[in-house]
């Protein structure tokens, strides 16, 4: 076996996890190879150090910070997943609504199909179209005149000069001069 392989197998060698033949081969190699022996000694020293290392409890503040940091990271990870999914869902729902709305509009603009006639008495009436505009048709004549009715209020003001009469915004200087 090459030195690199031997060195990789040293932890398993110490834990006696290898087959007997391999263990013997590594033992023989260590007796003849200086560099592998050095690596083996370093490894044994490190393990020794680990066995004498005393466990110590971290301060409560640091433990709390670590736990809350982990919780925060988990939360951010969830937000990162949930937000795009929610946005995607909203887009799909929105497009569905919009598509349904467009279909509805197209449907209203379609020429009169025979199967949606209000009744046999009125073959020229598209019931869907009539219902869609019913709020206007109920009082079409009134809505036709709304613009005119609003304008009637402007008539008394048309010939009035800007500063005269009831303009409450005029300045006190205007009041004195007039």
């Amino acid at each position, binding site marked *: 076996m090459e030195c690199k392989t031997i060195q990789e197998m040293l932890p398993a060698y110490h834990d006696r996890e290898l087959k007997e033949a391999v263990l013997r081969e590594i033992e023989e190699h260590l007796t003849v190879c200086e560099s592998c022996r050095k690596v083996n000694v370093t490894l044994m020293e490190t393990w020794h150090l680990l066995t004498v290392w005393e466990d110590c409890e971290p301060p409560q503040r640091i433990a709390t910070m670590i736990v809350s940091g982990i919780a925060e990271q988990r939360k951010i990870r969830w937000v990162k997943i949930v*937000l*795009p999914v929610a*946005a995607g869902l*909203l*887009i799909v*729902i*929105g497009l569905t*609504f*919009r598509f*349904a*709305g467009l279909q*509805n509009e197209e449907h209203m603009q379609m020429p009169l199909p025979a199967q949606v006639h*209000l009744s046999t008495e*009125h073959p*020229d*009436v598209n019931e869907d*179209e*009539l*219902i*869609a*505009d*019913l*709020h*206007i*048709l*109920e009082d*079409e004549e*009134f*809505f*036709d*005149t*709304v*613009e*005119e*009715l*609003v*304008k*009637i*209020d*402007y*008539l*008394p*003001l*048309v*010939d*009035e000069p*800007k500063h005269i*009469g*009831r*303009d*409450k*915004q005029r300045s006190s200087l205007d009041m004195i001069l007039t």
Partner: protein
Amino acid sequence: MNRNVLIALICSFVLLQGGYVLADDAMIRRNKLVWESLSPEEKSRIIQNYREWRSSPPQKQERIRRNYETFNELSPEERQKLRERYRNYKSLAPAGREKVKERLHRVDSLPPEHRVEIEKRYIRNREESANERMKHLQQSRFWKHLSEEEREVFKKLLIPNN
């Protein structure tokens, strides 16, 4: 662009679109209920309106739809006032209505900036009481140029309760 801002914009757009569709649906549902509650005579009247509506030019349809929206943007008091004015207008003799239309042409022919200025002055003055409005109306040049007959017409339209 900040990702959250982008997501907020997308959500707003989607909700807005959904809102339009839901509003349309609500109107259709309301209209269906109204239609079902109408008497046969009322249905006949509306069918007649529908036929006239279908045969009217698209510009007229568009204007009426715009008027409908304008009306719905008004306060309940203003809507009531317009309804009452409409009843009074309808009760006028054809000659009276013609006179009103003639006068209204004056408003249409105003330059846009003058029209805007008049609209602003109207908004400032509309909180006045009926008595104050009547007083100001009688002081206006418009009133002074009206015949007695026309004054009766415009008094009825402008200050119906006075």
